[in-house]
């Protein structure tokens, strides 16, 4: 019996996230949960599950599929969807390209990362989603540090960092006009370490690429990229075998692996505690440059 009425840090974060999730589902007509298969969206999916049980998850989940996936992540996604009996919407970047909505980038650093924004916004519009849950955290990046929990997007899906609604107490302004929507970030106040500790506490399954495994990689811009056809390895970028793991899960063309022997959850957490390089700085080619995330977010990126 807890006579002092104390909650652990994870219990406080969990309670706060569930309050946000219930508030959005109560106040919006057509919410959707964005799911990448990455660790943050795994935690988010778990929180949405907990917020409504024993009822089923009350909204569909959407995966924006660049076509450049890690096969382990797709397999994981499909298994979770089947377990939960939830509706999966796949928004395909390949289809956006085929329909001429976006043009494929070319060259060595070509990536479909930026193209995802158009695919995402088109899917939100065609499904008439009015609220999209995402797993972004404020500790990830400085543009995200200024993000609201319930973040307004205009009819073009754009984020205006200078004109955000003040958020006070636990009261969220959920009013929008037709064709506008909100992005909702229930994990805003979680840190990378909180996410890992929650995965350990709840025994959550995450894609196998988060743990050390042998992989053929090559080095580019100080990052280790998987030697797959999407990464366009050049002759001056020799491939080699290494034992690596992924710290984030994104598009396979631009998500870097890290040298690691951390094969268990405990070892991964220990590694995160000791690391001296930020999550996105270490693993995301798309975040290179002072204002890369800021620019993509304004256009309507996740």
């Amino acid at each position, binding site marked *: 019996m807890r006579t002092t009425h104390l909650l652990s840090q994870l219990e406080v974060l*969990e309670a706060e996230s569930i309050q946000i999730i219930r508030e959005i589902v109560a106040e919006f007509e057509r919410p959707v949960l964005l799911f990448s298969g990455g660790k943050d969206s795994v935690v988010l999916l778990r929180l949405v599950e907990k917020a*409504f049980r024993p009822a089923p998850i009350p909204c569909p989940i959407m995966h924006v599929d660049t076509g450049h996936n890690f096969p382990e992540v797709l397999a994981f996604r499909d298994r979770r969807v089947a377990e939960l009996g939830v509706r999966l919407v796949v928004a395909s970047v390949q289809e956006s390209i085929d329909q001429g909505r976006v043009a494929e980038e070319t060259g060595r650093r070509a990536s479909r990362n930026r193209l995802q924004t158009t695919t995402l916004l088109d899917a939100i519009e065609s499904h008439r989603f009015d609220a999209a849950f995402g797993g972004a955290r404020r*500790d990830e990046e400085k543009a995200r540090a200024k993000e609201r929990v319930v973040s307004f997007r205009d009819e073009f899906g754009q984020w205006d*960092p200078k004109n955000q609604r003040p958020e006070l107490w636990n*009261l969220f302004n959920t009013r929008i006009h037709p064709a506008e929507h909100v992005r909702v970030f229930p994990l805003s106040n979680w840190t990378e370490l909180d996410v890992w500790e929650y995965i350990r506490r709840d025994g959550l399954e995450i894609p196998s690429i988060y743990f050390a495994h042998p992989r053929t990689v090559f080095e580019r811009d100080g990052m280790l990229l998987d030697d797959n056809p999407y990464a366009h390895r050049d002759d001056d970028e020799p491939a080699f075998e290494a034992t690596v793991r992924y710290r984030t899960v994104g598009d396979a063309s631009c998500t870097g692996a890290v040298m690691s022997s951390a094969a268990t959850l405990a070892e991964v957490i220990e590694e995160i505690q000791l690391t*001296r*390089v930020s999550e996105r700085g270490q693993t995301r080619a798309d975040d290179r440059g002072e204002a890369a995330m800021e620019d993509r977010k304004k256009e309507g990126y996740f």
Partner: protein
Amino acid sequence: MNTPENISKSVPRSAGILRLATAGSVDDGKSTLIGRLLYDSKSIFEDQLAAVERTSAERGEEYADLALLTDGLRAEREQGITIDVAYRYFATPRRSFVIADTPGHIQYTRNMVTGASSADLAIILVDARKGVLEQSRRHAFLATLLRVPHLVVAVNKMDLVDYDEAVYERIRDEFTAFATRLDIGDLTFVPISALHGDNVVERSVNMPWYDGPSLLHHLEHVHIVSDRNLIDVRFPVQYVIRPHKSDDPGLHDYRGYAGQVAGGVLRPGDEVVHLGSGLTTTVTHIDGPDGPVPEAFPPMSVTLRLADDIDISRGDMIARPNNRPDTAQDLEAMVCWLTADRPLSPRMKLVVKHTTNTAKAVVGELRYRLDVNTLHRDEQADVLDLNEVGRISLRVTRPLFVDDYGRNRLTGAFILIDEATNGTVGAGMIIGPRSGPRSGR
């Protein structure tokens, strides 16, 4: 720069999360202080620090300017503006911290009110060379208005006054004299140099006359668990869970009322009252995120199951029969106006969001506008402009279940929304008929 071994990003952080609001202008060294806390707690990664060192070197500075760690977006640098509030995270082995970092100049009141609304503690920075300024008083007043339970006055730039005890004592005495006019629960003073790290993480060797803890030590140990109201049971119903379509026939009759406990302690077997019907019933089960729990208290998100089938929906309140919130359609409140689009004025129609309730409302009277610098009440004022604070009466289209803000920061607070723009235009703190500090403290 020192990086003490006892500080790291590691677990277990037994003392929970402390939410901080920082108040002060750029010149007070607020960014440097936050940068120092982040740096000395090893919450800064090498790639982030390298970026700061690069920029510092480009500007010809000898040391890495830690203030750059909180540097903003390109949109801000380009336009010379600062976006209202950024959130920073750091942790020590004892506790995790969330800093609501609000810029000091334009729209200060709006930003500080936002940051303070959910803060456990506010740090007010005072420049030792300048002493207690008008803005120091304003920051203290706003922290008090928002009922931030703990206030720390950090007297900064002690290095620039030769670490002189007399300077510190003069500022402390002056601030204390002013503070008697405010209802401050817990007031602490720390002399620091954010630039050099004196009394920030480690006790300073330059100020042997100071026998208190370092700022971080105070932040790690300040007692916040009794800041919550554990006496008055308040459970705003957020969502009704009815899995009647489930394949499991055992769930066909399940009906649960989901919400976050806003006050008091609930246990199965407790008699409760439903508002607005006034019907009483008994709590049979409390379902937490991982299954049944023996009790629920703030800030837990739970689902209540009740003995009787009462028509309960979102926006209703569950309380104890002998301890109910006020059921009110006419509210008295302190309001901070958050928009420059149009001022608040009598007869203005707005939408009020209070707990899980949303209703239309019309402003009655503006009783007075409060000068946040002098605390002078201007009863002749007829509007509240952006960043202004005043007392209003508000008529709501249907009853809300409210408490005095001083008794409960969740059931005593509301936001005002402009129906035309959908903007959040006001922050309100209810002045209840039973005002004053809650019992038990």
